């Protein structure tokens, strides 16, 4: 259970990134945060991750107020952020240091299998494609079996084809343990395909502008008419300029 209560965030330079953000995310729910760039969605995610602190207000996980990264939270960043000196396997193992070698070996192997990278366990990050590197990052986040998974524009640096494939893959992985997922994205289609709920943030300062609940079964077809209609509406609502809009549809 994730509670976000009246979060207000002001940076040192005086910029107010978030104002009066209230949100509750239920176990196993997939929630997307969408909004134009600079609306504070990544900042909110970083606060939940414990990497930034809210100026006022609080975030609590399992009724425990967050001040630092929580062990039950996994994070997938926009970039894979793999340690270039570690093999795929050792990158995945990064968060398992407290376990014995045998235990961590077994968990690492199982997780690598989950993301379909068992054959690449001994490779170095520089030998991987962008999509594979991001799958390693997903495996690294999953390996501690977090009940909450935070994803900060996880597929935005990938090409359209790989992105679609990884979105499906993510859902497939989600099926195993059904973690709560909170996904920051600027790709409305991605949000529509994945989420139970879409939170639209609007800057600035960033506030929750509206919430869309999607009660559609998954996996969802990207061509689904309901989704297409929502896409149109949300794009209009976000005041996306024509230029940005055409980019978002690439």
């Amino acid at each position, binding site marked *: 259970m994730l509670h976000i209560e009246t979060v207000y965030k002001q940076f040192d330079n005086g910029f107010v990134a978030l104002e009066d953000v209230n949100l509750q995310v239920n176990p196993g729910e997939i929630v997307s945060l969408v909004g134009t760039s600079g609306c504070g969605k990544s900042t909110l995610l970083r606060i939940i*991750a*414990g*990497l930034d602190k809210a100026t006022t207000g609080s975030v609590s996980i399992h009724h425990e107020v967050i001040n*630092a*990264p929580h*062990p039950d*939270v996994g*994070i997938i*960043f926009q*970039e894979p*952020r793999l*340690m*270039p*000196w*570690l*093999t795929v396997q050792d990158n995945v193992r*990064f*968060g398992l*240091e407290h376990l014995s070698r045998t235990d961590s070996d077994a968990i690492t192997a199982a997780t690598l299998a989950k993301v379909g990278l068992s*054959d*690449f366990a*001994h*490779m*170095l*990050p*520089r*030998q*991987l*494609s*962008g*999509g*594979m590197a991001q799958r390693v990052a997903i495996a690294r986040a999953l390996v*501690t079996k977090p009940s909450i998974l935070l994803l900060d524009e996880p597929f935005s*640096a*990938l*090409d*359209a084809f*790989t992105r679609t494939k990884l979105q499906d893959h993510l859902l497939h992985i989600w099926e195993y343990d059904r973690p709560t997922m909170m996904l920051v994205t600027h790709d409305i289609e991605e949000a529509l395909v994945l989420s139970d709920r879409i939170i639209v943030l609007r800057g600035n300062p960033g506030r929750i502008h509206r919430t869309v609940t999607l009660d559609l079964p998954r996996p969802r077809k990207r061509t689904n008419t309901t989704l297409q209609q929502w896409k149109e509406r949300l794009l209009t609502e976000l005041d996306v300029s024509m230029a940005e809009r055409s980019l978002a549809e690439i």
Partner: protein
Amino acid sequence: MSNFLKTNGSKSAAISTASATRPYRPPKRRRAARHQWAIGLIIPITLLVLWELLSRVGVFPPNLLPAPSAIASTLWSLTVTGELVEHIGITVFRVLLGFLIGAGLATVFGALTGYSRFAHQLLDPLLQALRSIPSLAWVPLFILWLGIYETSKVSLIAVGVFFPVYLNLMSGIQNVDRKLVEVGQVYRLNQLKLIGRVFLPATLPAYIVGLRSGLGLGWMFVVAAEIMGASKGLGFLLVDGQTTGRPDIIIASILLFAVLGKLTDAVVASAGKRLLRWQDSYSSHHQ
């Protein structure tokens, strides 16, 4: 668009060619590559032959520039008497001891000022000020304080080694990717583990550059130290050759400095290469 190109670029090509199941091993050097070092020998050997020929026909006066063969025979006679081994031994000893002390201290200070903001504010201004003193300016003071024997020589070398190692390590640590550090924080590594598992490996490339340039300066300073006053060592041989009018001895010592400098650098460089096999750099694709 650029991302699209990136993911379909050289990286994915590397995957399809590398073996999928075996542990990572760097590709074996091809036969041709094994002989590539010979290319670097073409010009030196040509020059050497020309030098010998021109000396023999009397173009170079032997009292200023003796023939390579004359230098070789001088080297040989110094070797036979055992003198050379002694000179080389003491010089190498001074460089290595100075290097260890200088690099050791630089590692401690560089790590401190790179990692801790407070230590940086406290120590870096002073160290930068000291760095701007030409290191040879220390010589008279060191001799006055520490005498003319080993201590002052080794100290001078240590000072020379210190700064490049310090600077590279400090800036290396400061330039560690914040994004990787955050990954460490997400997994709640404590300070010590964060240093060991993120900062240390990430800083290694810069540190090795620092060690190599520090070692180079160490060789420079051992000459200075031995010229100032020594009864043994390659620097002493240089001065000895000058006072006794023996250019062959001077040139022989210079050549020995070149060989020893190159050898010690190669040791550090190859250790570095082994440790930095993971780097995705231009040169790692063109070995």
